[in-house]
């Protein structure tokens, strides 16, 4: 079978044309807005990824899949919590599905794997990942983050622990990866600036089935700060309680330590634990008072960090789309609208700093019982917290990024 020259030229021409043509730029009202979601729906991060999907899908459904007058098509891609797959999926969303903007991903290493690519493709991205440097020393004009950096929510809690709870010595424990390092570093910085001392920093390897040996290492202090994510915090806490340590030390946690997704599987042992986050299902604003019960009704559990993150993304996206009258093809305008938005969301009003990171309220929460289930009740609100806390931003950026050893822990007990 031979291919005629004409056929070959025709096919080759079509191929070259399809490669050369950019995203078709026509703002036809019939063409839907395509939004891609990068979520880890399988693998160890599955719990968060599934919630991200559920909340965003619910968001779209509530609005009848229409934002700013145009139909919206949501394409969900499973990154499996693996950076290489996240990259493949990002490519698929951009090149095959021709999305106009991307929401997610969740994990820092997923976000870092695709950051260069998304910037090169000029793809507006509403990120969830907390990696500090993505909005500090390596920001991208196409990336915003509506949740918080790893340390952003830890700062208020550190101040609260020192000033109001009057803790003097704290032990920190977190997973041994960047997110844990960054959160504990931020907590340590503000806690020690307010007169406290971090006497021990424990980092547990990612795959730790049994926390027993780590619990036994915990030194005696006023409190232990859990900088953990996913289920590890709760598994550690169980062992902590079984070894009788909860009677001797208070437990406080970061934004993912005792998230609603973890609380729903816990019992009374969690009561009284303080954590900090940019969201709580108990928030008393009109938008959340509609969202949280609706989510609970549909899925039988409270929304937490992960569900909140994509729902807020949807709200910010909608506000931006409304201000550009749905003309999502004009990417620069969309990005400018997102960055300039002052959207009212279920977490409160948020705006973005010049690096694309959200400035919003951070809430200190306490685990209490309400209607027979455990909830994170808000006991204090720190308004308009930025990723730099009260530090001067130029000085902040001159320092190296937070890591396991930076800022150096000077008060560790041997």
């Amino acid at each position, binding site marked *: 079978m031979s291919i005629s020259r004409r056929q070959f030229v025709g096919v080759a021409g079509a191929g070259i044309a399809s490669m050369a043509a950019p995203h078709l730029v026509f703002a036809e009202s019939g063409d839907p807005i395509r939004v891609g979601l990068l979520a880890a729906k*399988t693998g160890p991060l*599955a719990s968060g990824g599934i919630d991200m999907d559920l909340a965003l899908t619910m968001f779209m459904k509530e609005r009848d899949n229409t934002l700013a007058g145009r139909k919206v098509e949501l394409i969900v891609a499973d990154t499996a919590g693996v950076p290489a797959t996240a990259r493949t999926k990002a490519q698929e969303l951009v090149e095959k599905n021709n999305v106009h903007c991307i929401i997610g991903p969740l994990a820092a290493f997923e976000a870092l794997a695709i950051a260069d690519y998304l910037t090169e493709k000029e793809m507006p991205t509403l990120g969830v990942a907390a990696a500090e440097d993505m909005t500090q020393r390596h920001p991208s004009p196409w990336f915003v983050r509506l949740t918080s950096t790893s340390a952003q929510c830890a700062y208020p809690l550190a101040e609260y622990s020192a000033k109001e709870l009057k803790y003097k010595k704290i032990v920190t424990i977190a997973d*041994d990866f960047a997110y844990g390092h960054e959160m504990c570093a931020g907590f340590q910085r503000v806690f020690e600036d307010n007169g406290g001392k971090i006497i021990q920093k424990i980092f547990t390897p990612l*795959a730790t*089935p049994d926390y027993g*040996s780590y619990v*036994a290492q915990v030194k005696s202090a006023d409190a232990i700060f859990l900088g953990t994510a996913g289920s590890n915090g709760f598994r550690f806490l169980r062992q902590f309680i079984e*070894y009788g340590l909860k009677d001797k030390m208070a437990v406080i946690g970061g934004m993912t330590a005792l998230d609603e997704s973890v609380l729903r599987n816990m019992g009374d042992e969690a009561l009284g634990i303080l954590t900090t986050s940019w969201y709580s299902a108990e928030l008393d604003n009109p938008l959340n008072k509609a969202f949280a019960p609706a989510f609970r009704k549909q899925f039988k559990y409270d929304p937490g960090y992960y569900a909140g993150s994509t729902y807020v993304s949807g709200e910010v996206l909608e506000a931006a789309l409304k201000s550009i009258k749905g003309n999502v093809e004009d990417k620069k305008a969309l990005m400018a609208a997102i960055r300039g938005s002052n959207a009212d969301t279920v977490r409160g009003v948020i705006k973005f700093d010049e690096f694309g990171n959200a400035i919003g309220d951070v809430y200190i929460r306490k685990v209490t019982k309400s209607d027979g289930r455990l909830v994170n009740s808000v006991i204090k609100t720190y308004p308009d917290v930025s990723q730099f806390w009260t530090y001067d931003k130029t000085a902040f950026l001159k320092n190296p990024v937070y890591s396991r050893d930076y800022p150096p822990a000077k008060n560790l007990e041997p």
Partner: protein
Amino acid sequence: MQFWIIQGLNSLSLGGLLFLLSSGFSLIFGLMRLANLTHGAFFMLGTYLAATALRSFDGLNIWITAIGAGFVVAALGGLFERLVLTRLKANPLGQVLVTLGMSFIISDACLMIWGGDSIPVPTPQNLQAPTRLFGFVFPTYRLVLVGLAVLVAIALYFLIERTRLGAMIRAGVDDRQMARAIGIPVSRLFTIVFCLGAGIAGAAGVLGGPILSAYPGLDADMLPLALIVVILGGIGSLLGAFVGSFVIGFIYTFGTALFPELAYIILFLPMIFVIAFRPQGLFGRVGA
């Protein structure tokens, strides 16, 4: 001083858990020369079953749940062995593919049924109060786990050394061809042993539940540990699995406490040394 005692007890309880996990693996590998890479998934299935059963039925006893889950997983294992594994007698690569494939199926099924959350397994009521020792407390359940491991070890010892079934198993381990030649139903024996191994794994999953909790990825965390124990202890040797479990328990617990920088590799270095210098493991009879 307290540190050494607590970590010592931790080592023992971890060792006990590891023995419960790896005894089944050792049994299967010893007789069938099959590295059952589904073992972690069988274990995890037991943990998830326990999580649901114990949280749904208030009065349910963990020991009964362990036996029940053991039977369920054994049945699943038996089906798998009969329908799939028997056809792969001379195909070790096929066995790798199939056991890994089965582990994907089981773990995805668990994700589908139970979702992505970590689900705790409640500690039995009468063992919840911690034991007071020398001025500190230690979780009672962990101490019980050590006792359980010893019990299971003794039970398996009796099975292998003192029963006819055990004699047939030993014969099969030593010389499969001869065993067949003198009339031992080796195929049926394989199925029985696989069921037993899988069942022990499932029961172990239940018993380990209060310490580990059920979470996606538990299978991938536990399987390498079973492999390490069996390699270190020696193929085909139950004593090797027993000793290996506690050795690993000690190395892991004290290693992560004293040398946190080596946390990731603390388990693999000893194993590399052992295999490099004594490939059959500490007590192995058959070469790896």
